[in-house]
């Protein structure tokens, strides 16, 4: 009884520490951005260092709690193993990154590591096996991004490979239809041996590259016809594969890049109108679309079947209030597929809803840094790539967080950096790597250091 009480007291107090950590992290990020603007290099570096400390404290605090709450020595050792592995991963990655991405955006990197660490702690708590795998995906993702600077040194003109992006994109997106596997009502997976893989995650990037390469050539409406057909094709395929979230992400990416390159309000609202018509048509034609909307409007009616998932999510978020139950003291595993689509609900349940708001703000910080990079970029193609990537992160976060809190109908997309899953984790990190390359290499190469305010 009394040992249990001590553990409970520690966990309850830790809620406040976690909350303090995330808001100190955000505050340091904000301050660092300010100092960067004012070119106060030392203060900037100090804040960046503080942020890294917060990530590491978060990591150890999280794993210590999981360890003291473990049932037996065996599982304690397992948790400690992942905890040490994770610590090693974070520290080693940060060191390597600051060597290889010398001119990278440190606030952006830190934010991503903070989120990945939340993901790792949460997965360890929900499903230890997935945490171990996720750590491998994270390492693979970071490992891949460490190669980018060299690739960017070799290949100078990414805008020239438009046709290649298009063809490769189609090959990937059609592959699940030929040898795919259905999961959670969406047929958008392929299996290579034991290794499940979601091609639409990779195609997202190819799609951005393709659109950016097409839109920089924009002069008249004629130049848009082919990209429109391409985009429509992708979206149609995704709807057929029942990946509604994917379809929405592709469409909004198309819309944003179109608007930025053409500045045309008519085209913007024209596409939006077209999409509204298309979604009404989809609502009429496809039963799975109707079901999603009905469950969103009234999940309580079918609480034991179709509405089960979303209502369980609402219980998780709503039961414990602002500070949450405390790590390990909630019941997030009552939500089906909690470690992928619904991981945000689990975070809100155990770390508290204020912490959840902090997570949303970190995503906003990431999007903000991505947009800053895009604005400072002097060539349209790379600028569009930057916006496209920031857009993907923004839209995906909005769709899944909005979905699990029942603000909008649920579309099964992953929460970048946090949700369990190889394709999602690796592609999310690759996207950040690309953003960093835009900042640290492309600009330096083309413009020389003197034209760019960077530290």
């Amino acid at each position: 009884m009394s040992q249990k009480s001590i553990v409970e007291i520690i966990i309850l107090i830790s809620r406040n520490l976690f909350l303090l950590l995330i808001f100190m992290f955000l505050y340091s990020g904000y301050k660092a951005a300010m100092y960067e603007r004012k070119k106060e290099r030392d203060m900037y570096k100090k804040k960046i260092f503080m942020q890294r400390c917060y990530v590491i404290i978060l990591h150890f605090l999280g794993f210590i709690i999981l360890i003291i709450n473990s049932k037996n020595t065996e599982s304690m050792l397992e948790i400690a193993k992942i905890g040490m592995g994770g610590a090693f991963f974070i520290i080693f990655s940060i060191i390597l990154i600051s060597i290889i991405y010398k001119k990278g955006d440190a606030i952006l990197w830190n934010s991503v590591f903070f989120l990945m660490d939340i993901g790792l702690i949460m997965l360890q708590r929900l499903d230890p096996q997935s945490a171990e795998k996720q750590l491998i995906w994270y390492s693979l993702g970071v490992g891949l991004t460490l190669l980018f600077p060299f690739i960017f040194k070799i290949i100078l003109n990414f805008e020239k490979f438009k046709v290649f992006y298009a063809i490769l994109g189609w090959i990937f997106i059609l592959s699940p239809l030929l040898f795919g596997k259905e999961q959670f009502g969406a047929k958008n997976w392929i299996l290579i041996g034991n290794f499940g893989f979601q091609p639409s995650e990779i195609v997202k990037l190819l799609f951005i590259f393709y659109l950016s390469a097409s839109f920089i050539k924009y002069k008249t409406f004629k130049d848009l016809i082919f990209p429109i057909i391409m985009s429509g094709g992708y979206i149609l395929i995704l709807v057929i594969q029942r990946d509604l979230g994917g379809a929405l992400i592709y469409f909004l990416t198309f819309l944003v890049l179109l608007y930025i390159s053409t500045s045309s309000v008519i085209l913007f609202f024209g596409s939006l109108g077209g999409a509204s018509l298309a979604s009404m048509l989809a609502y009429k034609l496809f039963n799975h679309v109707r079901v999603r909307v009905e469950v969103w409007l009234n999940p309580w009616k079918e609480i034991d079947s179709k509405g089960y998932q979303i209502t369980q999510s609402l219980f998780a978020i709503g039961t414990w209030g602002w500070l949450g139950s405390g790590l390990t003291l909630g019941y997030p595993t009552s939500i089906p597929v909690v470690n992928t689509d619904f991981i945000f609900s689990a975070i809100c349940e155990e770390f508290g809803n204020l912490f959840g708001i902090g997570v949303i703000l970190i995503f906003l910080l990431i999007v903000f840094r991505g947009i800053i990079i895009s604005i400072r970029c002097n060539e349209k193609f790379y600028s569009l790539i930057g916006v496209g990537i920031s857009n993907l992160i923004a839209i995906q976060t909005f769709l899944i967080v909005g979905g699990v809190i029942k603000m909008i109908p649920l579309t099964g997309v992953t929460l970048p950096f946090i949700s369990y899953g190889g394709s999602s984790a690796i592609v999310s990190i690759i996207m950040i790597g690309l953003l960093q390359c835009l900042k640290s290499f492309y600009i330096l190469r083309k413009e020389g250091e003197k034209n760019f305010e960077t530290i």
Partner: protein
Amino acid sequence: MKQFRKNIKRVFGVYVVMFFSLILYLVKFLILDSSSIIINTYNPRLSALEENIIRGEIRDSKGVVLARTKLEGDTWIREYPEGRDFAHIVGYVQKGKTGVEAFSNFKLLEVSNKIIQNVKSLFTGDKLKGNNVILTLDADIQHTARELLNNQKGAIVVMEPSTGKILSMVSYPDFNPNELNEIWEQLNKDEKNSPLINRATQGLYPPGSVFKIVTASAVLENKEDWENFTYNCTGEEEFHEKIIRCYGGKAHGEVNLDSAFYFSCNTGFAKLGVDIGAENLRETAERLLFNRNLPYELEYSKSQFLLDKNSEDKEIVETAIGQGKTLVSPLHMAMITSAVANGGILMKPYIIDHIETNYGKIKDKTIPKKYATLFQPEIANQIVDMMVEVVEKGTGTKASIPNVLVAGKTGTAENSSGEDHAWFVGFAPAYKPKAVVVVLIENGGSGGSKAGPIARELFKKILNQ
């Protein structure tokens, strides 16, 4: 390039709006919606909490314990010290949850000062304790009401019209919640008495003459020359092939709206019903929450009013005097009467007064809230005047008490189950009402002589306090 950058900034503006709408929605969900959804039985957190936490106490407004959890041997059991008198309203936890036990389930299991309680339990080894729920009910009035019901099937509701506080709610046949496990099967088999039903909120009965409050309101609203209305009552008359009789076949002679009300003259009201028509009556009834959800958070049944413009003519006549297909719960009648007493305004009825934490801190205090204006103030006042006359010189004289003006309306409702149901609805003091009382005795006979005296004793009890 300049325009290009401007576009990017605009798009970022959209992202900022999207992200902040997420945060706002989450905050709104937590503040406004979450407390009512998490008590759902599909939420596995509550039953998990139950194993580790001592459920809080339920108490009446003066501190009388109505439900508590105590250790018996080495098992924790829920005990109801006031027994069967509170069985329906407080509810039980042994066989599913009902009443306040169900509605306040989360509050009773919610632990305040969790860290302090944990530190304390380090030394004492005690389990954590949930919050206590303090009700608006008054155990004195509740026991009196239960005694007055005197083992007759029926229900009593007592409400404070100026706030909406429910002071008492009794239903009989009842059961002893402390013996629930032993008598459960027997209670469920007893279809004749249905003791598990809370008749005050879930029982639906023909209103009989208490419905004349509704009809009179419709007349005052729609019949401009109501002051000139006269009718010669012979004790019986045929309207649209439907013979209407006054109670006991009594001829009231020439009546106007006033005297038809206090004598409860059926033929007079039948005529008034024909005059104003089905649609006007339906409009008033629906404004008074017939066919609607009631502002009440525990289990209840919706009242029923079926008359509409397609109904047969004879149905208007029956409905106007509270017969026909209309059905109402005692709680709903208490709401209507309460609005009359309170100048037409219905305060939202409530039963949870506040939550008290383990350390005596009060939180979530319910603030009385206006629900709706059911009657225009002038019309409410006219109905009060007529209801005073009912007790002074009409059918409700048995509810009168010395030195205090009582307002009331009796009802004697014909029904298919045998003897008439006896109704009394009223409040006292008439022009400064402290309490609304609704009494229903199933198959009790005449409202005036059966339900009226019970109301009188309750008024006495409440006003002397």
